[in-house]
Structure formats: C-alpha cells, structure tokens
C-alpha cells in the first residue's frame, strides 16, 4: 500500500520566523528559520516545502533539502541557489518576517549506513542535504569521504560545515578552479571501482546522478540517491512529482513521498 498512503512521518505546517537569510556565495544564500517542532522530526535527506509569497503568484511551494537542523537552537537551515522567480523572491528584500513551512517531508537517507566506509557524492547544491547526513553519520561514528563537485570553486559550498563533521573532502570543479579538473563522478570513480567504499550517498543534478549510478553498478556498490522533480503538494497526493523507479506498483514513484531518496539501483534513467 505504500503507493496509496503516505508514510507515517510526522509533518507540520506552520509559519516560521526568518532568523537569517544571508548571501554565502555568488547567487547562493543560507536561510535560517526558527522551527523547533520541524527540527525535532527532521531526518537527513528530507525536505521542507516553502511558500514564498502571500499572493497567488507565484502560487506553488518550493522544495528545499534540509541543510542543518539544530535541536538546541530550534533552527532549521536551508542552503539555496537563486535560479528562478521563487528563489529570487526568497533572496529578495520583500520576504517578510515569517515563512510558511511544510515539513519535514519525504523519506530521507538510511542512517546509520548499512555498511561503512561510505562515499558521499555531492554535485552543486546537492551538498545541502548531504551536510545534514554527514552530521548524523558522524554522530553514528561512521566514516568515509565526501566527494564534492561544482561548476567553479566559488560553488564548492559549505566548507566550514563539512570541516566540522570531520569527514575528508575531495573536490572537483568543471573549470578546474579548485581540486580535480572535471566531474565529481570521474573523481570518485577510481576509488569506487577499487572497492574502497561499502556504501554511497549522492545528491546533485540528474545527469551527474545518472553517471554515478552507472559507475556504482559497474563497481557493484550499493547506495542511495536524492532526486529532484517539479512538485505540487509535496505530501504524496497530487501525483505531479513522478520519477520512474523500480519496485513500485506502477511505473512511477512519487519523489515527494516515496523519495526524494531512492535506492540507486532502482532508479530508471532515460
């Protein structure tokens, strides 16, 4: 029945105070919300669905992975990039003091990992949910390596946050401005093929995940990937966020409720 009834995670909807909303890099911002109840329930890989205007335009909520959840402070962190109307509003000067937050939503990463050491592979903003994962893997005493890729050095984000988790980091940039000159999948492929890691977690652009899944299959290593899809409700009802994944009663799974994290081997890439 998993396709008919949403998982019994606790999810809430309420207006959260905006504590900070600051630029951290070119077109990238960090948002800190006061949302203690959501923080208490949040698991790595889950997301929150934010309403960015009080008007009917833009109409829909926007999904963002949970970057950090500070139980003591009751704060939730989001790391986001300005790409369109909604994120522009989010970064703009008319945001207002509170935001309607729906979450935590979806099924996150498996913690602790079924096996360690782990490879954590991040592309671009994919680092956001993976930071929260690193926090929890660290707390569970598991270790591994973070492979982090981006277009350019300025977008190798979250340096301090990663450092605090104690995980090793290897970086790659498309333009060679930092670390390995090339894709993060190429960077990680050698070690994956050599069987250095027992489990993989990944988030990032679809093309990167597709390439990674190919390497993982060849290397015979299992893991989980976080998918992105345009969403409506975020709660598993509207069937708008489908992605082709094996193991569901029909062809498509719902990214919002069955995912966003799926077993790497089950995702069907066109």
């Amino acid at each position, binding site marked *: *029945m998993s*396709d*008919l*009834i*949403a998982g019994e995670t*606790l*999810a809430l*909807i309420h207006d959260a105070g905006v504590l900070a909303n600051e630029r951290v890099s070119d077109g990238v911002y960090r948002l800190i919300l006061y949302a203690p109840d959501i923080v208490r329930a949040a698991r790595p890989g889950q997301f929150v669905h934010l*309403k960015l205007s009080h008007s*009917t*335009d*833009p*109409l*829909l*909520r926007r999904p963002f992975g949970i970057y950090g959840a500070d139980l003591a402070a009751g704060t939730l962190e989001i790391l986001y990039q300005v790409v369109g109307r909604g994120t522009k509003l989010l970064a703009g000067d008319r945001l207002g003091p509170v935001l*309607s937050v*729906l979450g935590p939503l979806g099924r996150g990463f498996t913690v602790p990992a079924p096996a360690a050491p782990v490879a954590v592979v991040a592309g671009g903003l994919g680092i956001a949910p993976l930071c929260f994962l690193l926090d929890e893997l660290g707390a569970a005493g598991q270790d591994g390596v973070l492979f982090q890729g981006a277009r350019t050095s300025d977008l190798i984000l979250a340096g301090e946050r990663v450092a605090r988790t104690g995980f090793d980091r290897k970086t790659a940039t498309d333009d060679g401005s930092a670390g390995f000159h090339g894709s993060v999948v190429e960077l990680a492929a050698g070690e994956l093929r050599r069987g250095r890691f027992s489990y993989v977690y990944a988030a990032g652009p679809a093309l990167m995940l597709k390439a990674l899944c190919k390497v993982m299959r060849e290397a015979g290593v299992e893991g989980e990937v976080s998918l992105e*899809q*345009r*969403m*409506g*409700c975020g*709660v*598993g*009802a*509207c*069937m*708008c*966020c*489908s*992605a*082709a994944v094996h193991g569901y*009663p*029909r*062809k*498509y799974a719902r990214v919002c*409720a069955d995912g966003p994290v799926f077993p790497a081997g089950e995702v069907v890439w066109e």
Partner: protein
Amino acid sequence: MKPDLAVEIAGIRMQNPVTTASGTFGYGFEYAKYVDLSRLGALTVKTITFDPRDGNPPPRIAETPSGMLNAVGLENPGVDRFITDVLPGLEELGIPVVVSIAGNTVEEYAALAERLDPAGGISAVEVNISCPNVKAGGIAFGTVPEMAAEVVKAVKAGFSRPVIAKLTPNVTDIRSIALAVAGAGADAISLINTLLGMSIDWRSRKPLLANVFGGLSGPAVKPVALRCVWQVFEAVSLPIIGMGGISSGADALEFILAGARAIAVGTANIVNPTAVTGVLDELEALLVQQGVRNVNELVGAAHR
C-alpha cells in the same frame, strides 16, 4: 448564531457544502495528518479507471501566473485495487464519499459503474467526461452533448446511487452539455474541470510538460469557473458542485451566490494542505458575520 451549513446534493446529505476536487486530495489519507477529514461535507477522491494507469511521463506540473498546469494523466491503481485497498479506509470516515471515474469508451464507464455498484461506502460517482473518447478519434466525451449524454446514461444504468456529471469548460457552450447530461439522468453537475493550456520553456525551446498540453487550474481560472456555474444554474435545475480556484471562504461564497449548492477545493490543497478546512472555517465565519442562518438561502442569490 451558528449558521446551518448542511446541504443536500442529489439526495446526499452533506454536513456542509465543502468537498475536495478530484485528483487534488489523493484518496484522503494523504491529508489525514493535516486535516480532520470527518469535518468535510464530502470527500471526492482521485479519478479511477478500470485498469491501473501509469499516467504521463514527467514533468507533469508547471506553475503559471496564479495557476498551475497538470498532466498527471489519470495515474491510478485501477478499480479493483481501489475497492480492496482504499475503500474500506474511506468508509470509516463517516462522511459521504464520491468516487470519480473515467474511461476511454462508453463500455469502460459502464463497467466501472457496475463494478462499483455493489461496493459499500460510496455515496455517489462523479463521471469525469474530460477524457478523450478513443472510438470517436480522441474527442473528449464532455465536449459533445450527445456523447456526454451517452456516458451518463451508461453509468446511470449500472449504478444505483446518485450520478454526478463533471463538465469541462473547454467548450463553446457549457449550457448545451449541462442540458444533455440533465436529460440523460444526471443527479447533479460538477464544474469546472481544468482549462486546456500549455507552457513553454524559452531556454530549452520546448514545452515544459512532457505531455505538451496540461490542465490549467487554480485562482487564475476562477472567473471562468464562476461564469460556467452562473450559466449552468440558469440552464438546468440540477444541484451544482462548483469549483475552480477556490482558496478562501469568500471564494466559496462567490460560487454559492453564482448558483453552486456545494463547492470543491482543488489546487488550494496542493498549495496548502489545510486549505479545505480553512475554506470551511472562513465560509462559516463569513456567514456568521453576515447574519445568514442557512447557507441554502444564498444558493444562486446573485441571480436575484
């Protein structure tokens, strides 16, 4: 004083005029943690078809100014799994359950009606006639009066409780469709379904939806929906379930004044999981404010 909110649609008693628009509220369960479902006037569930359907490839959704396009393509588990897996849970809610059905042939509609008729816990079926008729070259059943009537007749023949016809606004004259389904024995009329639209991504120079076309819904369509309710109210005497962009109690009231006896909340659920009870609470507050004792007094009042 607490106003009397109860209404009757084709013999179904609703404790208030507020239901959910098919396809925007799943099968209800998905919203159970946000909304006390037992407070709804009725629960209208996502359209089911005879066989399971995968639906359209993604992307299936696009945002538009004050609206959205969807091209879900009627993804659903099929009538049999619906009856075995979903229906028992719905019966427990203690509110009327409306089951939306669709088919690509008249026979498919008839088969659905017959399969659902013996099942318990269904107060009415809502016939979604916006689907393409595969035998008539893909013309939607709901766009030709005779075809719409034929579907309604077939469902009436196989289903012993009330039958609601849900009309599409993508027609030259919605009154002629309403008259046809009324003549065919429909017990009530739901309107509107989505407006046919599309969206283009100028960066990729491609349609945004994999299906090219999608259905437009949300606040953007409210003026068209109100007009359809108004026209149908003047054309036929069947009770009307009005919908299209309702996201507040004031919106709901406007539909009631235009002639709707009940109203459905659709896209607003997708924006806000508590929308449907929000609309209900606001509607009640407005009626109190205006000193209205019984909501039925206002049905169609703007025509007077």
